[in-house]
């Protein structure tokens, strides 16, 4: 066992660093999904489409900025701008026009409404950006690489994946924890999540909180997409891939857990990248195997709390 680790320490190290960047992206999408579920009690299947549209918008804006001769650093402005734009436009649009009509309806119907939104957004995305791969990796290139020593070997890693992605994820996690626990708006969101009726009886405008939370969650999905866009070429179907993965994270973590979602993203991100290096054919399967294994032992998820059964 120890000998195996010693032999494969290079690959394991690579997998660890890769997994970190990947986990950071997964976390941003999953935590938005989780937040939205907490307040709306709806599992938003279209969350993955917001990720994809965020990615495409960021790439388009980045290419536009570059074509205008703006400095390469403007690519970062494009990422942030894309996330805000997608969140602020699509979030309220979806919540106000569609979701608002189905609160309190059956879970099945709610799930299906978001599935319908997913189908619509997938085609909107294809109509706007086409089906040819788009890539815009300037934000990643401009930072260059750093040489990571592995024993005698030296492996160049992009600074973007090594520092920027995990850094943003940690900032999002810390910011979110602070926002939800220390600010009035955040506490109001938590209150609505815990007990909507009691919160409303206290005079909290639940409709406003819902709108705010959904917009915020949509923005997080779009931010995940925007940050992912420099690292990969964008093709139709990335939304569908992303959403199932973040379902796996949310279900494994247990619903309504922020730190739990972060740890689970790490677990699943690392698990996947270890698979990429050691058993590539099982790369896609690993997150689901982790999820099934966890739910076998803890049906409420790693960090979930058991709900008491109603009689």
């Amino acid at each position: 066992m120890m000998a195996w680790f010693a032999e494969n320490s290079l690959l394991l190290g690579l997998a660890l660093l890769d997994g970190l960047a990947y986990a950071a992206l997964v976390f941003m999408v999953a935590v938005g999904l989780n937040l939205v579920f907490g307040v709306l009690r709806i599992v938003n299947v279209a969350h993955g489409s917001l990720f994809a549209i965020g990615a495409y918008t960021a790439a388009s804006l980045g290419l536009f900025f570059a074509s205008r001769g703006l400095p390469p650093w403007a690519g970062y402005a494009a990422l942030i701008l894309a996330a805000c734009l997608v969140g602020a436009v699509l979030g309220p649009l979806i919540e106000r026009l569609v979701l608002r009509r189905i609160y309190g309806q059956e879970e099945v119907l709610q799930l299906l409404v978001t599935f319908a939104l997913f189908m619509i957004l997938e085609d909107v995305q294809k109509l706007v950006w086409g089906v040819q791969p788009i890539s815009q990796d300037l934000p990643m290139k401009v930072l260059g690489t750093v040489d990571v020593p592995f024993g005698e070997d030296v492996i160049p890693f992009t600074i973007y994946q090594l520092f920027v992605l995990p850094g943003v994820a940690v900032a999002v996690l810390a910011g979110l924890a602070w926002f939800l626990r220390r600010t009035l708006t955040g506490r109001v969101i938590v209150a609505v999540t815990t007990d909507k009726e009691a919160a409303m009886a206290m005079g909290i405008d639940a409709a406003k909180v819902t709108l705010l939370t959904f917009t915020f969650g949509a923005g997080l999905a779009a931010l995940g997409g925007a940050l992912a866009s420099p690292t990969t070429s964008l093709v139709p179907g990335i939304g569908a891939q992303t959403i199932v993965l973040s379902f796996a994270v949310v279900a494994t973590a247990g619903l309504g857990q922020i730190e739990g979602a972060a740890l689970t993203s790490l677990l699943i991100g690392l698990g996947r990248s270890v698979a990429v290096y050691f058993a590539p054919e099982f790369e896609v399967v690993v997150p689901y195997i982790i999820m099934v294994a966890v739910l076998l032992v803890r049906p409420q998820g790693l960090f979930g709390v058991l709900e008491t059964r109603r009689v």
Partner: protein
Amino acid sequence: MSGSANSLSRPAGAAPARSLGEGLPALLGIAALVLVAWAVPWLKFVLTIALAKGIAVLGILLLLRAGQVSFGHAMFLATGAYTVAFVAPFQTEALLLLPLAALLATLLGLAVGLFVVRYRDIFFGMLNLALSMVLYSLLEKLYEYTKGTDGIRVSVLTFAGLRPERETQEWLMFGLALLLAVLFGLLVRAYLASPMGRALAGIKTRETRLEFMGVSARRVLLFAYVLSALMGGTAGALVAMTSRHVTPQLAYWTSSGELVFIAILGGAGSALGPFLGAAAFELVRVYAAAAVADAWQMILGAVLLLVILFAPGGIWGMLAGRLRRSA
């Protein structure tokens, strides 16, 4: 639940559709299907696929009665389809392949069912999704056996030892799908009216009460789950034999979503709903894809939204309501 005239929240026995009788609409539907298949030959293929999917959706309907939604039932459909594709080179007899495919899907349903019936709601849905994605990934990645995303071409089949002409074969597949659809429809109707079927609605309203009565909710749900896997496998075998080509896409989560979509579109209040829904779904897909190649998904999505927002009883709910008013 608010009084949104929602067919899902109605207890099984109180469905107004039942008191009206489903026999006449069913017979009319069969006649219409045969007529359309005869008058517009190329639609025969579309309708055969629709009937097959309708059978799979019957299984979704059972789980919906228990308030559970599976976002992974395409795995049983894919199991049935790939069984046909794998075995066809060695055994070309369609009438043997079909039960074999159904059997394997049923066994998988039992294995998966024993695990997933312990969970409810979101966890039930997501576990089904996860397991179907495992199957999808295996079908996609084990290229040596499955040819990956290219899929497998199903070799030419024989029916009762005969190798009929293409036209005859299409009619045979259509007839087979129709026959199985009727049989499974009747089976589901009888099952839902039985105590086991009635208990499903108990899982949805208050499971604990069911257990106080000494009924094992897990067993009730497991029975429905295995039955739904059987129908999924049968549907998959029919799809593989009709389209003669299987791809991992059959197991992707969006295919599972489509099945739930069809269930809601047709209306979950009656065993006729899945077939109405499947026919409408496949026809809209075919015509929308022909009219606007890149936006057919958008059109289907919009139809789904409109149905849920404005006609939550589905097509069957609308028809039944119309019939009731005119009666």
